């Protein structure tokens, strides 16, 4: 039975969070399919990296270690993965839906003529009947993802091409060590056999990792706070909820003017106009200027101590109460219902 493969992203010699989450998912898929879980780590000075990878239940770890392989550039990583997949013929290959995985995945899938589904939110094994061809496929990977700006949820399959490739965003899957003593085997790749000199044409001139810009415009979920949040400290609750839900924090002008958060998070006429799937308005009264910037949100939850707050008139859910009480409960019950 062909293996499940996970491409392990390496940042500063460390396995990326998203890769550990995918190893966890990959292990459960491999167990269900009764096959091996294999991983590939590409980078420089990777000695000992297996200690961070085997505990997730990895049976074989392929390592490509060379000075020219870090930091990540597309072409050499692509050549190694493509050649290895041609040799090993995995049935499933998973990558993070990160800056790296979303750059590498499509190129690999094009070279192998295998299908790739981006940004999956769920991966499940299931069967498929092709009525036209009168053919039944067993144990396919159902790649489930939102599409169309999040307005539909699609289940994608790759009946005929292998590997079935999918990317998943960080935080979507749960990370869990299978067995700290799990022992897999290591396969060190001869990098010169897996790459060509022409793979190194892109030159890295400068590189620095920094805090990324706030992007409330593109966020699918926004937890926004107003003057009613009361303090900068209370805003931390909004950041917590946003992180748990995979969203961003927004604010009303009153909250920005009070110094609770930076101006770049301001929603409204003088800030950013947003149309997320879900807008959670915390302690925002809902002046017209603010509403103009968010009333097209698909769903609105208004949390306010004032039952007559104008924001309530455009909300789908109205919760009358204290933000400091309600937000921790939302976090608690979200976690309780997703795990």
């Amino acid at each position: 039975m062909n293996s499940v493969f996970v491409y392990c992203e390496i940042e500063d010699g460390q396995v990326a969070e998203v890769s550990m989450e995918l190893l966890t998912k990959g292990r459960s898929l491999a167990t269900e399919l009764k096959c091996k879980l294999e991983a590939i780590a590409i980078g420089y000075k990777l000695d000992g990296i297996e200690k961070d990878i085997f505990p997730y239940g990895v049976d074989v770890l392929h390592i490509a270690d060379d000075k020219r392989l870090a930091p990540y550039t597309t072409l050499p990583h692509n050549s190694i993965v493509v050649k290895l997949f041609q040799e090993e013929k995995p049935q499933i290959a998973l990558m993070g839906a990160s800056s790296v995985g979303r750059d590498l995945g499509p190129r690999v899938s094009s070279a192998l003529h295998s299908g790739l589904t981006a940004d999956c939110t769920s991966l499940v094994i299931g069967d498929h009947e092709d009525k036209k061809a009168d053919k039944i496929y067993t144990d396919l990977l159902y790649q489930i993802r939102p599409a169309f700006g999040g307005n539909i949820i699609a289940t994608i399959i790759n009946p005929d091409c292998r590997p079935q490739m999918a990317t998943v965003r960080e935080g979507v899957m749960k990370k869990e060590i299978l067995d700290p003593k799990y022992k897999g085997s290591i396969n060190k790749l001869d990098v010169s056999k897996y790459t060509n000199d022409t793979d190194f044409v892109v030159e890295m001139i400068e590189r620095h990792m920094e805090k990324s810009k706030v992007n409330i415009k593109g966020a699918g979920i926004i937890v926004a706070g107003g003057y009613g949040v009361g303090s900068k400290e209370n805003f931390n609750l909004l950041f917590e909820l946003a992180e748990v839900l995979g969203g961003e924090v927004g604010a009303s002008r009153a909250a920005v003017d009070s110094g609770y958060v930076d101006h770049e998070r301001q929603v409204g006429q003088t800030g950013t106009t947003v149309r997320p799937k879900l807008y959670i308005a915390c302690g925002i009264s809902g002046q017209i200027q603010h509403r103009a910037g968010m009333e097209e949100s698909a769903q609105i939850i208004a949390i306010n101590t004032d039952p007559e707050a104008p924001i309530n008139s455009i909300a789908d859910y109205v919760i009358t109460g204290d933000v400091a009480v309600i937000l921790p409960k939302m976090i608690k019950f979200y976690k309780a219902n997703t795990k």
Partner: protein
Amino acid sequence: MKGYKIIVLAKQVPDTRNVGKDAMKADGTVNRAALPAIFNPEDLNALEQALRIKDKFPGTTITILTMGPGRAAEIIREGMFRGADDGILLTDRAFAGSDTLATSYALGQTLKKHGNYDIIIAGRQAIDGDTAQVGPQVAEKLGLPQVTYVEEVLAISKGFVTMKRRLERGVEVVKCPIPLVITVNSSAPDCRARNAKLIMKYKHAKTISEMQEANDDYLHLYNDRPYLNIKEWTVNDIDAVADELGLTGSPTKVKKVENVVLQSKGAKVITSSDEDMDQLMRELIENHTIG
């Protein structure tokens, strides 16, 4: 300096950011007719990068390549109003149902046929699919290096392009030889507005199909002013293997589609009790709003 030959890959998309109450049909499918068709936003960021290269290097030409139905010629004209020189509309029933790989194959074959490119620039992703796959896949089909997530083209010199990339957690400056494929992020500068003179110049620009439907009054224009002819290519204009196209050429298949409930049903008033909070989070997870 004779400038560069730039191809901008663009897509006409339904405006999924502007989903109104009638965007979903009763049967749960998307009502495309209710959504305005727009120039994919990040493809406009890509066009702006191309226009900036053209500003700096006189003699540069910009060709917009799009695959889609006949009406997608609208975005080619839109691009011309902002400074693109011409366009190719790739349109054929044979492309229907293409996933990203079949799309990239068709675009790749078109580019091979057209040739004559130094720099291919596309938006990072289209808002109707958000896959970010077509740029890198086209690069692979053409055997070109790719530089994704570009925020700014910093310099072009001696056959190399230097660019700033905006990643999730940082920035990189990379230098890549020409020819190459670049994909541009939404964090890059917005596209400039339409230019009044260019609107006058190109407002009658049409594909052959559009000309055939159009009023005869202007038909004489197309011989006198060749720049008004938007190329319309079908599968017969590119060397394509039929099995690689459309639904047949797409390794990924859609097994099932579920509607995400969008309608506001009037405010539900709930309390902060544990029961209500638990119920709320369940509802939001079940209707795919969160989770």
